[in-house]
């Protein structure tokens, strides 16, 4: 079962690599913001599955922080793109 957990964690990082490609090639800035937010979500999921693989429940705190603050980061981006200044 732990093989499944680490395989899912690796697959999420591979998806993160695809999202980095979208962040590099995205024609508009909206594509890049969405790619960045999705990358944070994929990192959170990978972290959850890695903590299940390594059986360390203290890593779940980092997943909670990452989920909460990736939302805040996207909010900052939206405000910056709307006004040009925070």
């Amino acid at each position, binding site marked *: 079962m732990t093989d499944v957990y*680490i*395989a899912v964690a690796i697959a999420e990082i591979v998806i993160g690599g695809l999202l*980095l490609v979208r*962040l590099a090639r995205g024609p508009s*800035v909206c594509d890049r*913001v969405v790619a960045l937010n999705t990358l944070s979500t994929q990192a959170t999921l990978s972290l959850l599955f*890695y903590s299940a693989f390594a059986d360390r429940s203290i890593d779940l705190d980092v997943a909670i922080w990452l989920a909460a603050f990736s939302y805040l980061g996207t909010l900052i981006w939206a405000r910056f793109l709307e006004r040009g200044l925070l």
Partner: protein
Amino acid sequence: MTGFWVLDYLCLAAILTAAVLVLRLPSLSSAVMAVSAMGTVLSLLFVVLGAPDDAHAEVVVGAIALPALFLIAIGKVRTDVHDRGDLGEREDL
């Protein structure tokens, strides 16, 4: 245990890719987004290597606070500089 090393090297490859993107992307806001992506994956690498307290600091500082500070600085500069070529940016981005 090989899965651990695969995850480790994949995180390293993603961090290197994001760092190269910071240097190569033509617009300033896209480079700041690449900085944020690098901080996110770096926090994941900290967790994989067994340092969740460093990962806490990296999530807050590297993924959110540092890009926000860069955004504030770029926004303040843009209010003074009207020709975006002076910032080293392309006009169409």
